[in-house]
């Protein structure tokens, strides 16, 4: 009897917790499907009486994101343009770093790695002004290359660690054999290591795409006015527009912005969790 009560207690707790966690997603969805009149009159938790996709259309192609009123789609494509190179390059570099650290172990490399990992915890505010000046001196500040380079710099600790830990699990004999067969640094990397790195590349891509897509502060500072990512434009839509607030359009825009990482999360499932476990040092 006692056991039965305990079981019920467990499920009640988990069920109520699940409700609490799902509530914001539910509220976002139903709000985005209501008209403003319905929002003003009814409860935030009520299902839409006359569901409409009009707020979604407005959010995507009409809402004002600052000076321009062309919806969040421009931000969406900016985020795509930022995320693609900011995923590929950090993964490539992270793989090379991890490979060199695990197998070649050049002198001083482990100290360097320790410092790199410590760097992952430094608040960006400490580095942001000098980086702005450096990039300005290089003549790229406020451009796509600038934001990609910044993502490369700040993504490097986690990317390097993922690959280093992954390659640490690869038998060293394999590397020795490739060396004896006359393989050089790049050849062993390209022909032996990379082909067996598919699982960790998937994990790294999930982490990096999610991280870059969700970034706000770096995009705001470094991307420049023409490349502002979706998160920045979303915040502009909601927090800087004057006049009546269109909560339905705001929520549609929020879902649209969260869609890419959420889709990755729901589709990748265990891979995402694996990335968290492996990249737990990310701050």
């Amino acid at each position, binding site marked *: 009897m006692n056991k039965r009560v305990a079981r019920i207690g467990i499920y009640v707790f988990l069920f109520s917790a699940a409700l609490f966690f799902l509530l914001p997603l539910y509220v976002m969805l139903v709000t985005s499907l209501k008209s403003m009149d319905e929002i003003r009159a009814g409860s935030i938790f009520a299902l839409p009486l006359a569901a409409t996709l009009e707020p979604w259309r407005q959010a995507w192609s009409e809402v004002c994101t600052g000076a321009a009123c062309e919806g969040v789609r421009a931000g969406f494509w900016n985020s795509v343009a930022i995320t693609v190179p900011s995923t590929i390059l950090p993964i490539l570099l992270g793989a090379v770093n991890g490979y060199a650290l695990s197998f070649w172990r050049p002198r001083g490399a482990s100290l360097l790695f320790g410092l790199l990992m410590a760097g992952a915890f430094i608040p960006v505010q400490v580095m942001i002004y000098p980086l702005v000046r450096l990039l300005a001196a290089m003549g790229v500040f406020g451009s796509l290359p600038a934001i990609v380079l910044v993502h490369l710099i700040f993504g490097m600790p986690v990317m390097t660690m993922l690959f280093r830990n992954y390659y640490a699990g690869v038998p060293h004999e394999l590397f020795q054999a490739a060396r004896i067969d006359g393989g050089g640094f790049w050849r062993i990397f390209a022909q032996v290591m990379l082909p067996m790195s598919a699982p960790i590349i998937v994990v790294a891509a999930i982490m990096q795409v999610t991280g870059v897509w969700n970034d706000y502060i770096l995009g705001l500072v470094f991307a420049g006015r023409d490349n502002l990512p979706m998160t920045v434009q979303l915040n502009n839509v909601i927090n800087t527009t004057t006049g009546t607030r269109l909560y339905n359009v705001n929520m549609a825009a*929020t879902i649209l912005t969260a869609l890419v990482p959420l889709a990755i999360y729901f589709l990748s499932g265990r891979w995402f969790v694996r990335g968290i476990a492996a990249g737990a040092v990310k701050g």
Partner: protein
Amino acid sequence: MLARRFRTLTPFAALLPMALTVIVAYIGTALWTLRVSLTSSRTFASDNFVGLAQYERLFDNERWMLSLHNLAIYGLLFVVACIVIGFLLAVFIDQNVTGEGVLRTVFLYPYAMSFVATGLVWQWMLTPGNGIEQAVRLLGFPNFQFDWIIDQDMAIYTVVIATVWQASGLVMAMLLAGLRGIDPEIWKAARLDGIPAWRVYSSIVLPMLGPTLATVFLLLSTAVIKLYDAVVAMTQGGPGTASEVPAKFIMDHLFLRSNIGLASAGAIVLLVPVLALLAPYAYARSRKGQA
């Protein structure tokens, strides 16, 4: 001979981008910021050194002191709430429940959302007159009040609620992985001795989760220090400056108020707790490396 020499240099060359990142982008910029913080720089960096004057001005600045105060309240509540909720969820999920996969997915999905999206959703739910307040009023409590987000004394707590919702799933996932790593023999032995489950959790399992908890603590506390996006999205530091936080103070003084000397001093102050948190971690790691 030369070719061989070249070969042994390749690994060094390959690590050059990493070395540049560490030396220039991390250490170099931090030193640069330290230097700027010792000057009277306003809109542009100047070479007029004023010693620690910027730090004095910083700690005389009401807005900065308020932001530190907020960060302390926020940090304490955020870390404790995330760990307690994450631990409870992990322990309850670990009781062989049906639907474990679904529950884990539900508890972790907020972590996939950006702080901006998180902040905006909660801003909407907490909007007085429209959000939860109105929903409860329509339920038959016409005098119900829930306006923390526009209340000077309560605004920072709304940021706690939103970010705990976003991050406690991560704690759950990490602690659950830790729980699954515990030897089942321990549970068998405890059951044989008739020790109640809660005693096993508090006296045996919790200490065994020590290293995982340390990592969780490190992650959460550095997230506290970096807190920026969520505040910008939810309250813009308001009402007034009521929910101001140090990271936002620094950004505002760098880019809106043209006071980079003061902002740099703030950034260096922010760096101190990070280094204090990292030191024991680095020490533990280096000892483990030697053993």
